[in-house]
């Protein structure tokens, strides 16, 4: 019978460790940066650093609003400011939920009779100054701080820019 020496044990442990790492990496979702850099969407500049909040810290960003996202299974939230043509300011919030159902729940809770359905992601809603859409486990909300004749169209273009990165 063949005996296993110390070298053989080391080799075995190394093989198992590499296999475990590979399996772990394979299970993780791919890292996503949903925020288009300046110029990636015509007219839009990324105007701030991205801030990221884990679910337990979401109150620091939207205390009082956080509970509905927590109840729907939010994992993390990232946000960044944008500026269009140097004038129109907007904020993009990306909520990463546990699953698609969570994103759907939040989107549907924000629907009212004045909302327009838009073709962004799996489903989307637009108002004069905001676009909200979901794609898989992601719920994206883009809000402008003022209304101009071109606001709605500009927000939709930015929404498509975010969608393409998810």
């Amino acid at each position, binding site marked *: 019978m063949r005996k296993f020496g110390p070298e053989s044990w080391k080799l075995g442990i190394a093989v198992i460790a590499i296999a475990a790492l590979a399996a772990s990496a394979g299970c993780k979702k791919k890292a996503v940066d949903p925020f288009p850099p300046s110029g990636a969407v015509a007219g839009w500049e990324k105007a701030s650093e991205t801030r990221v909040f884990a679910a337990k810290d979401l109150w620091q960003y939207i205390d009082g609003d956080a509970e509905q996202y927590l109840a729907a299974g939010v994992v993390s939230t990232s946000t960044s400011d944008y500026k269009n043509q140097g004038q129109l300011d907007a904020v993009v919030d990306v909520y990463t939920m546990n699953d698609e159902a969570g994103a759907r729940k939040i989107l549907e809770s924000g629907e*009212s009779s004045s909302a327009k359905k838009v073709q962004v992601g799996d489903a989307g809603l637009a*108002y004069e100054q905001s676009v909200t859409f979901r794609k898989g486990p992601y719920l994206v909300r883009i809000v402008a701080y003022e*209304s101009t004749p071109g606001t709605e169209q500009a927000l939709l273009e930015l929404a498509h820019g975010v969608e393409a990165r998810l």
Partner: protein
Amino acid sequence: MKSRREFLKEAAAGAALLGTSAAAEKLAFAAPAGKSKVVIARDASLHGASTQPDEQKVLNLLDKAMAAYTGREKPVEAWKSVIPASILAGKTIGLKVNGLGGRGIATHPALILAVAERLQQAGVKAGEIVVWDQNAHFLEACGMTIGTDPSRMRCYPADSAGFDDEESQWGVAKIRLTKILTRDCAMVINLPILKDHQLAGVTFSMKNMYGVVDKPFLLHANGCNPAVADLNCIAEIREKVWFTVGDAISSVYDGGPGFHPERLWYPNALVVGEDRVAIDHTAWGMIEKQRAAAGVPTLEAAGRKPGYIATAADEAHRLGTCDPTRIRLVEV
């Protein structure tokens, strides 16, 4: 740990002490028969084409509100009748703003600057005014720039100033208070912004005190009731934050406290008073009126009746009144 009865006894004693100086002046313009006076001052022309109101018009509206509240036409005299002389003479006054909803629905910079301007004309040095909120992002949402130069109006957040090492407690509110309230300021003028609130129903005067504590999310149970009332009973809050200049220049009547432009409306108003319960009761009425106009169910029908307002008025809390027959509402 002190019992609620002991806290009540101490709070009452504190209120009596406060009454010897500040309240003596306040009685001069209190409403008759012990009623709580609340002023709503409006100017429909506050907004032009811009989303931000006209600064001069906001200053004029503040003057109108203060004149109606105090009965003193000259703005400086009005402010001097509200702020005790002992505080005007060299003590620091905080302006607690609210930027939680982001730039779209935060205390307006025009109002913050208007209050600061009148305080300085009443004798407060610029460096003795501190504009503050929970964190730097909230302050930036209010159009403020962080700065601690003692020769200028200062602006810094609660989380950088730090919180008391020891917890304060009243009822279910067991929290640590920001040192801006406990260490830096002799008095804080409350500058909340009127909003619907998904948990509490309405957020205005009393709810704005959630920005005073280290972990406000721990006070959200049961629609923030009795947490809002309990929190406002903590001696430092009750005794230092007794004057409200509420921002109802713009508001969200549904979907708050975050910014939902599709539910934004412009009351173009300021709400001024000392009875925080009467102010919140009045604010609740304003929100309900707009919800009805927009065809949205009442807060009670939506399961979000702001029960903390009645709790704040009950025998245990005695923070003010929500009895309409005991509120003298003055609309100008």
